[in-house]
C-alpha cells in the first residue's frame, strides 16, 4: 500500500545518507511499504510536518489532555498546530509504558508489542525514553485507549507523566555485572510499585523520580537525574586477589599500574608492595570504583553490601542543575524488613515533598530552599558527617541548642558501640 499523499522532504532526505541507521528511512518504510494504509498516512503526515519544522526551524506540536480510562497520566498528548496542512498526523499522542526492571525482553514479547502497536498506532516506538519508558509514539485518542487496553491485558502498565511519581530505572547490575552490590531490580520494583497510584494519578507538587544503580559507577546517572537515588556499595574491605594482581602487573607492567591505578585513587588509599602485591587502606577508600574498574579480575567489592541513598538530583529548571545529596550513607538491604524500611523512607520523603514543596518545585529545589537539616528533621533522619563535603564555613547560624545536639550525637555513638 502507500499513503494517499506524499510530501516532499528534501531536507529529511539528507538524513538518509551516512552510515548510521536512519530513522527517516524507517519512517519512509512505514509510509511506503506498510500494509496498513492508516499507518502509511499517519507517517506520511508526520514526515510532512517534520520537514516543515526543518525548513522553518520551529516545532508545531501542542499539548492537551488525553488519558486512558481510570488514569490521569502516562500519555503525552500531541495535537498539530499545522493539522490543516498535515491532517494525517494531526493527533499524535505518545504512550509511556513501564519497562521491566533492567529492560529485559524476549523477542517474542517485542514482536507481540509490535503487533499490538501496528493495530492501534503509528508503528514507531522507542526503547527507551530518557526516563526509561517504552515510548509508543503516535496514535490518536481512541488508539491510545485501545492500545493500552490490549497490552495492559498481557502485563504492561503505563508510566508517569506530569506531577507524579515517575517510571523508575535501574542498571543491568546483578544480572550481569560483577560490580553490583545490590538487587537493583528488586529495589526498583519495591519502590516504584509501592507508588502505582501516585504514578497513575498526578497529584504531587511536581515530578518525583527513582533511579537505582548497583554500584558507585552509577550507570543510571541516578545522582544527577533522580530525586531518590539508590546506589549499591559495601562497608567491609574490598576483595583483593593478589595472584591476579601479580598477573595484571606481569601483563601490563609496574608503571602501568602505578600511573593508572595507584596514583588515580582519590584518597591515596592504594600502595604497591615490592613483591607486586597491592595494599589497600580500606579505611580511607571511599568506594569510588576506579581501581576495581581497571582491575576487574583482581579487585571486587566486599561482602558487607548495602546502598547509599541520595536525594534531590534534577536538571536545569528552575535554579540550575542539582545533584542528589547523601541522606543515608549506608543501608543494608537483605531482609524483607530492610526493604520495607527503604519503602518507608521513600514514603516519608514523598509525603514531606507533597506537603512542603511549592507548585512545580522539585525535591532538590525544596531542600535548597528550606535547608538540608529541616528536610532531614522532616523525614526523621539523623545527621551524619558523610552528608557533607565539609562542615559549615560561615558563622552566621544560631546555635543555642548546641548542648542538646551534642548530647544526641554522644548518645547515638554510645548506642552504636553497645550494639556492635
Amino acid at each position, binding site marked *: 500500500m502507500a499513503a494517499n499523499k506524499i510530501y516532499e522532504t528534501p531536507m*529529511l532526505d*539528507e*538524513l538518509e545518507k*551516512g*552510515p*548510521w*541507521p536512519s530513522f527517516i528511512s524507517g519512517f519512509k518504510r*512505514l509510509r511506503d*511499504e506498510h500494509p496498513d494504509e492508516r499507518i502509511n498516512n499517519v507517517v506520511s503526515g508526520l514526515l510532512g510536518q*517534520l520537514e516543515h*519544522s526543518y525548513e522553518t*526551524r520551529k*516545532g508545531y*506540536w*501542542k499539548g492537551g489532555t488525553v488519558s486512558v*480510562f*481510570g*488514569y490521569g497520566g502516562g500519555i503525552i498528548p*500531541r495535537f498539530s498546530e499545522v493539522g490543516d496542512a498535515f491532517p494525517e498526523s494531526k493527533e*499524535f499522542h505518545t504512550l509511556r509504558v*513501564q519497562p*521491566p*526492571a*533492567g*529492560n*529485559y*525482553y524476549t*523477542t517474542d514479547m*517485542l*514482536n507481540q508489542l509490535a503487533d499490538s502497536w501496528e493495530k492501534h498506532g503509528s*508503528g514507531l*516506538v522507542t*526503547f*527507551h525514553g530518557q526516563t526509561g519508558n517504552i515510548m509508543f*509514539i503516535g496514535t490518536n485518542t481512541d488508539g491510545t485507549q485501545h492500545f*493500552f*487496553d490490549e497490552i495492559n491485558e498481557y502485563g*504492561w*502498565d503505563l508510566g508517569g507523566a506530569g506531577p507524579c511519581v515517575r*517510571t523508575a530505572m535501574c542498571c*543491568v547490575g546483578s544480572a550481569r*555485572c560483577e560490580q*553490583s552490590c545490590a538487587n537493583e531490580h528488586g529495589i526498583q520494583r519495591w519502590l*516504584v*510499585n509501592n507508588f502505582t497510584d501516585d504514578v497513575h494519578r498526578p497529584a504531587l507538587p511536581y515530578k518525583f523520580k527513582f533511579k537505582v544503580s548497583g554500584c*558507585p559507577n552509577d550507570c543510571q*546517572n541516578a*545522582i*544527577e537525574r533522580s530525586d531518590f537515588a539508590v546506589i549499591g556499595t559495601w562497608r567491609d574491605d574490598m576483595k583483593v586477589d593478589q595472584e591476579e594482581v601479580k598477573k595484571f602487573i606481569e601483563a601490563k607492567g609496574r608503571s602501568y599500574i602505578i*600511573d593508572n591505578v595507584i596514583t*588515580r*585513587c582519590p584518597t591515596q588509599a592504594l600502595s604497591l608492595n615490592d613483591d607486586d602485591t597491592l595494599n589497600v587502606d580500606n579505611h580511607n577508600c571511599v568506594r569510588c*570504583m*576506579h581501581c576495581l*574498574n581497571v582491575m576487574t579480575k583482581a579487585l571486587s567489592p566486599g561482602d558487607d553490601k548495602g546502598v547509599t541513598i541520595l536525594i534531590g538530583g534534577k*536538571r536545569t529548571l*528552575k*535554579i540550575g*542543575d542539582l545533584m542528589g545529596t547523601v541522606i543515608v550513607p549506608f543501608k543494608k538491604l537483605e531482609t524483607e524488613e530492610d526493604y520495607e524500611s527503604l519503602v518507608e523512607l521513600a514514603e516519608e520523603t514523598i509525603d514531606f515533598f507533597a506537603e512542603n514543596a511549592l*507548585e512545580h518545585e522539585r525535591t532538590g529545589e525544596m531542600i535548597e530552599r528550606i535547608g538540608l537539616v529541616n528536610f532531614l528533621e522532616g523525614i526523621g533522619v539523623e545527621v551524619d558527617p558523610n552528608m557533607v563535603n565539609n562542615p559549615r564555613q560561615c558563622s552566621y547560624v544560631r546555635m543555642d541548642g548546641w548542648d542538646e545536639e551534642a548530647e544526641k550525637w554522644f548518645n547515638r555513638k554510645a548506642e552504636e558501640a553497645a550494639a556492635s
Partner: protein
Amino acid sequence: MALEDMRHPIESGCPDGFQYMHPTMRKNYGMWKFHEHPRPGVLRHVAHSGDEIWTVKAGTQRILDVYSLRKLTEIGDKFADGYVRFTIRSNIEYMVTDEAQVEPLIKALEEAGFVVGGTANSVAMISHTQGWLHCDIPGTDASGVVKSMMDELIDEFKECNMPNRVHITTSCCQINCGGQGDIAINVQHTKPPKINHDLVANICERPSVVARCPVAAIRPAMVNGKPSLEVDEKKCICCGACFPPCPPMQINDPENSKLSIWVGGNHSNARSKPTFQKLVASGVPNNPPRWPEATAIVKRILKEYKEGAKDWERINDWIDRIGWPRFFEVTGLPFTKYHIDNWRGARASLNASTHIRF
C-alpha cells in the same frame, strides 16, 4: 461508550524483569566474578559458577519503525536464544553463552545496517530527546542532530580508542531532558520570548507563569485592553521556562535559538565526585538538516581529548589536570565574559588563589 462499559486498568506497574531475562543471567544473578572486553561491542562476563555471558551491543536509530524492531528480534531469534535488553543509551544488547555465537551475530547485525560497538572507551551512542518530532517546546530536533553526529563519530563508536568512555548527550530545549554529559549539545535561546498578547488571557494561568520565571522577569500587565504578561527584557535570561506553561510566550526563534556546547559532566563516582558540565561554546547555529558547525566543535574537542588525556581520564579529569586556560588554548575556542558564572553560588567557580597556568 458508556462509563460502565469502559475497561478498568490493571495497575500492574513495573513488570518483573526475570521473566524476560536470559536463563544464564537469571541463574547467576548477583554472582558475577569479572568481565573482559574481547573487542569493541563485545563483553565477556564470567560468573563464579564458571558460566559465561557474551554480550554484543549494537547501536540503532533510537526511534524504531516496526520493521527495524522486527529485524532486531529476528536476529535475536536466529543468533541469540531470543533474549535481548536495551541500555540506558538505547543500544540493544544480545546475550549469548557461547563465544561461537558472537561472530555470526555481529555479522548479521552489521549486514542489517546496525552498528556494533559503543562499549568501554568508545564514544557511546549519543543520548537524545524528542525534538521537533514530538515535543511541544523544542528549539531544535533531536533524532536528526544525533543521526548527523553519529554519522561522523561512527568510527569512534566502533573502535575503542578514547582515553575513557565518552558520554555525549543532546537536548532540544533549555529544559534539558538529555542528561549532562562528557559533552552536551544544548539549546540556548538568546532573545526574550515574543509574546502573543491576544492568546495569553485564554491560554495561560498568569500567576503560575509569573512564578515559573527563575529571575522574576515576568509581571502581569494589560496589553491593548487584554490581561496579558510583560517581560522585563533587562532581567530576562532567555531560559524559556515560561514557554511550556504559556505557549504564547514564544521563545523559539529560527535565528536566535542557538546551540551551546558543554563539557565535563561526569556522573560516575570513579576517581573524583560527580561533576557538572561546564559551558565551552555557544552561539552555534541551529542548522538542520545536519548541524555541521556543532559537529565540528564536538570533533575538535574529541581530537584534543584523545591526544591529550591519559588512559582512564574522562574529559573532566583531563581538563582538571591541564587546566581550563589550556583547554581553551588547545581547542582554539574563545573564552568570553559569558564563561564567567554569575548564577547562584557562582563565587565557588572563581579562582581565589594564585594557581595560574602559564
